[in-house]
């Protein structure tokens, strides 16, 4: 089996990113050729695996699209979370769930939260910014995997709860979006 540590240590990020892009393109063309969308899809090329799952009733967009090195289970849940993840109840200590008048974006995995694409770079979003549904608002890094955090709803960022570089738990509240009216 391939260790999860290996790709990150043995290779520079560039070939890994290229491989990911390649797998992503293959997935898209594969899906385009299918008459019916599958429930789940797993594509593997060398050390890279892309897994996708679609939730019931969702017709077009992938609900979950996660990327993991070979043989690792996929990261948990969709990156954009407006509701508490399935099976869970909101907990005060992690702050997951709804804030009155706003929709919380929570951490998709335990890891390190980054507000910008690179150290010292401009943050993806700041308080007061308006965001579209699916827009990237941060990154959680877990074991050298960069997992995008996306807005689950269109609206205005009313609060950012986690600092750049802060350790976060699964389900921890990262920021709050006030949904756009209508």
């Amino acid at each position: 089996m391939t260790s999860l540590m290996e790709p990150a240590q043995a290779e520079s990020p560039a070939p890994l990113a290229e491989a990911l892009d390649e797998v992503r393109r293959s997935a898209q063309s594969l899906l385009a050729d299918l008459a019916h969308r599958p429930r789940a899809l797993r594509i593997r090329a060398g050390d890279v695996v892309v897994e996708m799952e679609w939730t019931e009733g969702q017709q077009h967009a992938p609900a979950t699209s996660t990327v993991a090195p070979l043989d690792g289970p996929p990261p948990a849940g969709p990156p954009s979370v407006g509701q508490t993840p399935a099976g869970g109840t909101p907990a005060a200590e992690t702050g997951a769930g709804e804030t009155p008048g706003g929709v919380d974006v929570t951490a998709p995995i335990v890891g390190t939260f980054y507000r910008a694409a690179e150290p010292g770079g401009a943050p993806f979003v700041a308080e007061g910014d308006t965001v579209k549904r699916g827009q990237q608002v941060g990154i959680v890094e877990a074991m050298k995997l960069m997992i995008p955090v996306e807005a689950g709803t269109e609206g205005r960022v009313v609060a950012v709860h986690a600092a750049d570089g802060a350790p976060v738990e699964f389900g921890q509240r990262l920021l709050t979006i006030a949904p756009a009216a209508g």
Partner: protein
Amino acid sequence: MFHTVLVANRGEIALRVARTCREMGLRVAAVYSTEDRDSAVVRFADVAVCVGPGPARHSYLYLPAIMEAARHTGADAVHPGYGFLSEVADFADACESAGITFVGPPAAVIERLGDKSTARAAMAEAGLPLLPGTIEPVADAEAVAKVAADIGYPVIVKAVAGGGGRGMQVVTNPDDLPRQYREIRCTAQSLFGDDRVYVERYLPSARHVEVQVLCDRHGNGVHLGQRDCSVQRRRQKIIEESPAPGLPAELAEQMGQAAVRGLLAAGYAGAGTVEFLVDDQHRFYFMEVNCRIQVEHPVTELTYGVDLVREQLRVAAGEPLGLTQDDLAPRGVAVECRINAEDPARDFIPTPGQLTTLSLPAGPFVRVDTAAVAGGRISAAYDPLLAKVAVWAPDRPQALARMRRALAELTVEGPGVATNRDFLLTALDHPQFVAGTHDTSLVGRLTDSYSREET
């Protein structure tokens, strides 16, 4: 010794490991899924990290999340408990690479002994007796048929990657072999992602006897006697005891020495178990190695007076074994019953749900390992083990009487929740069990009569 130990597990075993860590003055870091937010170990721990949602593959089995939790909590050691990532070589490897001590054998040893084919080869090389069969995986149904014709039916076809009683198929009739062979390959592929299988002779009425071994990282190894785990329902143990009743002392000693020899030869470190089958002629055969602390470890702790988790941590920290074989003499008899949230009247289907009442056995020489609390929930996301009740007594009749008394004290209530308590009491009263002459076929016969009574 370590500063912070991350307990990479849940339920009773997470709490059990955490307790020893606390006794040793080590900081306890727990992990939990959203299903286990209010669990006993989360409350007990010095720090706890949510690692994912309920499904284990997204939380307790998800290596990057566990590694991140270890990093965030500053853990310098990870105890994997049993199940989940405990026998995943990549996890041991990832810990090592991150400079965190994995409390268990080295990754390469887990890899070799976790694969039943290479484990059989390694143990055969160390001189342990194997059941007649193949060491190498078999390529197709014809090859299985050939081996089976050689060694005689019934045979058992087992997944090379199997373990914990899963991924095996008994073949009694040559005509069924092609179909059963296809089925087990499919099952093995879906359970373990590895469809390789091997064949060995099946003993329908053998005893399951395992040896607890401790090895340090300095080439020393000792055994802590036997556990008889012959009371199994569909290869899941439900009653375990130490020592194995009626096992001749000379045979017990031979098995103990063989187990230590096998694990030392494999480069083992930590607590490990070598499982054997013992036939009615008192011949023993190597079955598999478990590279972890086992569910039933309390019966060994009770008869030997040794905290196995403490020894695991000491060995992992590089300390030499504090025990020699001569120091280790068992006292009395210990028996453990696994209380599962399941309904024997409905073919033992799991019965998760809210516990409105939970009253646990206590009193003289009774040990209860559980993470369940009144008002808490038995989650449908995980295995239905509710509690382990273990008792100690100077002899077996007293131990069985004590267990009956303890089980009678147990009350579990909740909407839709049932337990196997009464079934355990039935097994405890079976004349063969009382006489200590039972084998692995006991529960099968009991459940047959159980379902007849129901219909």
